[in-house]
């Protein structure tokens, strides 16, 4: 009796829920690539690199002799 009830219940659920095909109809890789491009962090220069560059430029302007020192280091 219980088994009949369970079978009836299962068939009711199957009828009520939309039948779907589990087959994938197209390749999703192009969409995936777009997602990776959109969401990946942009290749930006870190703030401390800009700060370092600013320090070097300012020190060269204030102390022009430091240019020679810089060239020697390079």
């Amino acid at each position: 009796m219980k088994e009949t009830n369970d079978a009836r219940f299962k068939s009711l659920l199957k009828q009520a829920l939309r039948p779907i095909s589990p087959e994938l109809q197209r390749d999703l890789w192009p969409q995936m690539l777009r997602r990776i491009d959109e969401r990946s962090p942009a290749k930006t220069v870190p703030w401390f690199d800009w700060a370092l560059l600013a320090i070097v430029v300012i020190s060269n302007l204030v102390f022009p002799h430091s240019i020679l020192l810089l060239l020697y280091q390079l």
Partner: protein
Amino acid sequence: MMAAQTEARTQFSTAEIETLKRFAAGDLSAFEMLFRQHQAQVYGWIVRVVRDTGAAEDLTIETFWRIYRARERFDPERSFGAWARRIATNVAIDHLKTVPQEVSYSAEAVRAVEVDSDLQQHICWQTERAFRQLPAKLQAVAKLALVDERPYEEISESLGISVGAVKSRVFRAVRLLRKKLKQSGIEP
């Protein structure tokens, strides 16, 4: 646990492990290979849970995006498919939480050709309505176990819970569904 890992190691060929290692290291071509190999399975699993083909495609992309972001945490000696399925299940359950619980009667009319009478159509509508009102985790388990009749072991692996916990969720889902249907005057 150790036995499972050893088994996994013997299951995969050296080339597969190499691909998984390259993926974990961030190689996009290795990721593409894995994507193409597993996209159909992941989609098939998701569509069984959400029962909406358009949403399932988006959720497949979301699943692989989460996989891609978590690549450094992936252990190349374990099954990629099982890992992907677990993430896919979580993504699908998250989606079910956002779907409106109410289902319109007019949408149901599309299916009218499949059922014999107004009464049967009403029963289907009430059943789907009751289904949507279940908590997302119970909905997912009930769809997989009762509608698609997937093995409990497969469901337990994809949810990361024990078979006993799956059975308990199915039992709770059935009890809730019967209760809700009874309240609508339907005795299944």
